[in-house]
């Protein structure tokens, strides 16, 4: 018996180790992300600048400090938070819908955000600045589309399969509406909409990084409290019920949290695909589906992937910034195929 307890403790340690390794990789990619760009900085300079930001008495040149603090740091931090939130959002959508191919975008949330942003670009600034109106439009539309799903999720007899069907219907609806806006827009405006849809971290400012971080960490904190219930949900809805889980409430709560994170993230950086599908699947392979480890690792993997994609987007064409949404999809697709073909049991 004591042996089995020890084996369990060893298993737990192993999973902590995986988390630690990923955290280390994340710190590395974060530093490289800050170092790459039009004016290449040395890794040690970046590390020094970061440490001096934390108040350590280290000498840093003022140019390096300005580039790191004002230009690169918000973008690099945004990559971490957005990647992490897409990873966790994907993990929970996959848990909720009992489907490893689900992502935060599966139920039409990205399409709704895209439509909201496009509509605002089309309508003009409505007396406010475009930097303010477009994210608000994307957020509102995303939550509006998600709230239709909240209504369905509250019904007892609605299964996760039916929820996916409803989500796909919404996806098509908002895609059509988005196409409609593009159809009636001028070519210049259409171009602007397209660029928003690509997804880009360059819109990151200290202000929106702070908002996104607060929302994402708040939501993940609440999700972690339900970690065991979400683990139980993966045994199947009927069995989760038999263990005393209020499935309807849990489903609604999780959906609201994922929608909040997704809406916030997409409204600031546009649509960044595939991280939401890929990150949770990697996390699942590494630590299994005990959500106490699965949620944090999905965050770390998502953050690491987007941070690396951010580096790639800067070095593919030297001197030019490739839209990051394109890079993630290009990395994501081969992985997706590997996942489908190589899936064991």
């Amino acid at each position: 018996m004591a042996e089995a307890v020890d084996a369990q403790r060893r298993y737990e340690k192993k999973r902590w180790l995986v988390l630690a390794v990923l955290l280390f990789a994340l710190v590395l990619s974060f530093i490289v992300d800050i170092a790459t760009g039009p004016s290449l900085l040395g890794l040690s300079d970046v590390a020094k600048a970061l440490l001096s930001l934390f108040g350590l008495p280290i000498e840093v040149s003022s140019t390096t400090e300005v580039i790191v603090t004002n230009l690169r740091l918000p973008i690099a931090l945004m990559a971490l938070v957005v990647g992490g939130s897409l990873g966790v959002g994907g993990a929970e959508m996959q848990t909720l819908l009992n489907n490893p191919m689900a992502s935060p975008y599966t139920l039409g949330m990205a399409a709704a955000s895209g439509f909201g942003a496009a509509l605002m670009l089309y309508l003009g600034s409505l007396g406010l600045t475009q930097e303010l109106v477009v994210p608000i439009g994307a957020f509102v539309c995303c939550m509006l589309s998600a709230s239709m799903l909240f209504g369905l999720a509250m019904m007892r007899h609605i299964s996760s399969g039916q929820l996916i069907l409803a989500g796909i219907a919404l996806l098509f609806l908002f895609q059509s509406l988005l196409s409609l806006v593009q159809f009636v827009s001028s070519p210049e405006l259409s171009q602007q909409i397209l660029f928003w849809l690509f997804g880009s971290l360059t819109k990151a400012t200290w202000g929106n990084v702070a908002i996104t971080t607060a929302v994402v960490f708040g939501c993940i904190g609440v999700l972690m409290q339900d970690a065991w219930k979400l683990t139980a949900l993966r045994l199947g809805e009927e069995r989760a019920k038999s263990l005393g889980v209020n499935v309807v409430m849990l489903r609604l709560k999780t959906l609201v949290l994922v929608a909040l994170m997704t809406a916030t993230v997409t409204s600031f950086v546009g649509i960044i695909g595939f991280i939401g599908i890929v990150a949770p699947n990697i996390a699942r392979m590494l630590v299994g589906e005990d959500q106490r480890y699965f949620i944090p690792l999905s965050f770390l993997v998502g953050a690491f992937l987007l941070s690396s994609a951010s580096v790639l987007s800067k070095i593919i064409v030297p001197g030019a910034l490739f839209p990051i949404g394109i890079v993630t999809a290009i990395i994501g697709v081969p992985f997706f195929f590997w996942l489908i073909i190589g899936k064991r049991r």
Partner: protein
Amino acid sequence: MLEVRNLHLAFDDLVLAKDMSFALEAGKVHVIIGPNGTGKSSLLKTLFGDIAPQSGNVSFDGTSLHKKQLPAWRQQFGYMPQDIKLDVGLSVLEVVLLGQLNALSLKLGDSLIEEALSALNQIGLLHLANRDVRTLSGGQCQMILFAQALMRNPKILMLDEPVSALDLHFQQVLLEHLDQQTKQKGWTSLMILHDLNLAAQYADNLLVLKGGELYAQGAPEDVLTPELVYEVYGVHADVVLDSMGVPFVRTQRRGLAAFENMKKSFIQPEFNQEKFHHAK
């Protein structure tokens, strides 16, 4: 005492319980038998509060089942649904631990782990504790889910066909364990079985369902007769008492022709009549 009074349960014109009443004593194993599609699983779901009946009352030790107190009501149950598929990246120990869902926190204490391991040990599956459940056979999954139900330390234990995937050895392990714990801890145990001989061996009280009615109830030796087997299942059988005084049901082969001559009502018991009255 788990009591059901004047229960009426129907899906459209499919009547699963017509004014059904019965009481189940604590410290006894109650077994439900009956033909396919007669509403046995639906009855368990109704007792669990998962299906709302059209009318009737369910109570346990004087407290009635109310929709508003569902979490507290369900906390008294260990319920093992029919489905035994476990396709999830969890270890056996983690699946068993989920039986104590409300006691689990982000940091797991040794005592809970030991409790789960002891549940596994009792049914002889301690050696599987750290295995990924996706590598287990159907029967092993079924035993693990039984350990999970034990882990809940329930007042009422409901098992829906708990031995459907088990070999002879584990059938006995599960049922003997169930019997012993029920008597030691005063649980009210209710399970659905299809094997009439297992039902006869382990039931303190046998409930026979047919066409939405409690067709017969009592000790197996009083209930199981060749007539009842024919009336409920449309199958000819001999029933003899074995050396322990337990009825033993042996079916007779009479060929498919015997079924062709039978009334349709055996295949769709009673429901045709209901539909007929409805149409008129």
